[in-house]
Structures are given as structure tokens and as C-alpha cells.
């Protein structure tokens, strides 16, 4: 079990740092992008949400706490992410799913992120605890193709 904890600023630079850390964790264990990309995409979606909504306007003074955990004792390996912030209470899982059947000109731009996370991860759970938003995501690292 390899667990990496980090604290990043609630900015684009922080998102980049967190995505780099996850890419480093999975590549240190020799895992292929073909099985890790759903987790990497999901981390980007969750962090973009936190940085652009929960922590919006607070800049680098706000931080996001992350736990990136990889369990390679199981086959397939399993990856778990915990993302927490001290922004106002917000459960991203409570948002409505977007309508993906609309024509291109009728599509609202954006709003797809959390719907993607639900499809890409095996398990997503939100809790509000000790004044913090805490999102936990888990996936068994098998290839996913539409």
C-alpha cells in the first residue's frame, strides 16, 4: 500500500501539482495510462470543482488536502483518492445529471464533470465532517472502454 498525502493551494497551480503527484504515484508502480486515466480524469474534475466553486476567490490562501492511495496487493490494483477542503458545505453528487442527448447547439457548456466522475469511478462518497467537504473516490484499475 502506497499512500501519499499532500496539501496544495486552491488554484490552477495546485491542481497541476496534485495531478502531477497522482501521475507520479501510478508511474512509480509501473501502471499503464490505459488503466489509470479514469482516476486521473476524475481527480481533475473533482479539483476543478473545488477550486472554481468551493474555494473560489480565496486564491492560494485556501488549501486542498489530498490522500492518494494505491493498493497493488490486490489484482487488479486499486486506487483511492480523498479530497477535502474547508469551503462552504457543498455536495457535488447532489447536482442533476446533464442532458447528453441535446444537439450541439443546445448543449450547455460545462456541467459534465461530476457526471463523468460517477461513470469513471467504482465508488464516490461525500461527507461533511468537522467543517470540511470530504469526497472519497475509489476504482479498481481495469481498462474501461465505452
Amino acid at each position: 500500500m502506497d499512500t501519499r498525502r499532500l496539501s496544495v493551494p486552491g488554484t490552477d497551480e495546485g491542481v497541476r501539482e496534485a495531478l502531477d503527484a497522482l501521475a507520479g504515484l501510478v508511474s512509480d508502480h509501473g501502471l499503464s495510462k490505459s488503466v489509470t486515466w479514469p482516476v486521473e480524469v476524475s481527480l481533475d474534475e473533482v479539483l476543478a470543482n473545488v477550486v472554481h466553486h468551493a474555494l473560489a476567490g480565496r486564491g492560494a490562501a485556501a488549501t486542498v488536502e489530498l490522500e492518494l492511495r494505491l493498493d497493488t496487493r490486490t489484482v487488479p490494483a486499486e486506487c483511492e483518492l480523498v479530497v477535502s477542503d474547508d469551503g462552504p458545505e457543498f455536495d457535488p453528487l447532489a447536482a442533476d445529471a446533464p442532458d447528453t442527448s441535446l444537439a450541439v447547439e443546445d448543449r450547455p457548456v460545462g456541467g459534465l464533470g461530476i457526471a463523468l466522475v460517477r461513470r469513471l469511478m467504482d465508488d464516490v462518497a461525500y461527507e461533511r465532517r468537522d467543517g470540511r467537504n470530504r469526497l472519497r473516490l475509489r476504482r479498481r484499475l481495469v481498462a474501461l472502454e465505452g
Partner: protein
Amino acid sequence: MRIDEERAAQALVLAPQGRLDSVTSSELERHVAARLDAGERRLVLDLAAVEYISSAGLRVLLVAAKRLKEPPAALVLCGLGPGVRTVLELAGFVPLFAIEPARAQALARLSG
């Protein structure tokens, strides 16, 4: 983010490299907007070197598609790896775009 460009007779080809995530996508968006503002109307986005795409990247594709909707303007996507294609499928984007396997076919589609 590095964005390779190739000027072909039929279209301008843009090939972003690496992740199309919530940080890098705005760079691609600005790049595409600058080319379209300069009068470019036929665009190929070659995604062969894209590691993965998140909804921020999808948004850039959607914005470009909206601006290039009226013929003879055109947008063709190509070089989608399995992960990129899966994200487009999950988002319901596949029917909205002209998609070709590789750059040669994308350009051939625009030469007719």
C-alpha cells in the same frame, strides 16, 4: 501545454500534447480562438498525443464545434486513443463531431 501545428492545403491541424485537463484546456481554448479569430475556418484537432481529456477539454471541443458549425467551416477530430474516445462516448459527444482515425483521413475528408 505544447500545441503542434501543421498547415495543410485543406485545413489547419492543431495537435495538443499531454493532458487536456482543467488547467491546460484554457491554453488550447485561447490557441483555437486566436486561429479562428484570424479567419481560420477549417480545423483538424489531432488528439493522438493527448494523454487524457476531462470535461474542461470537452468544453473546448464544444466551443470550437459551435464556431465552425456552418459549412464551409468544418471541424474534424482525429487520433482519439481509447481513453479519449471513451470520455467522448460517456459525454454523448461522439454523434456531435466528425471523427476520423488519423490525420490523413481527417484531411482527406476535408478535401472533397
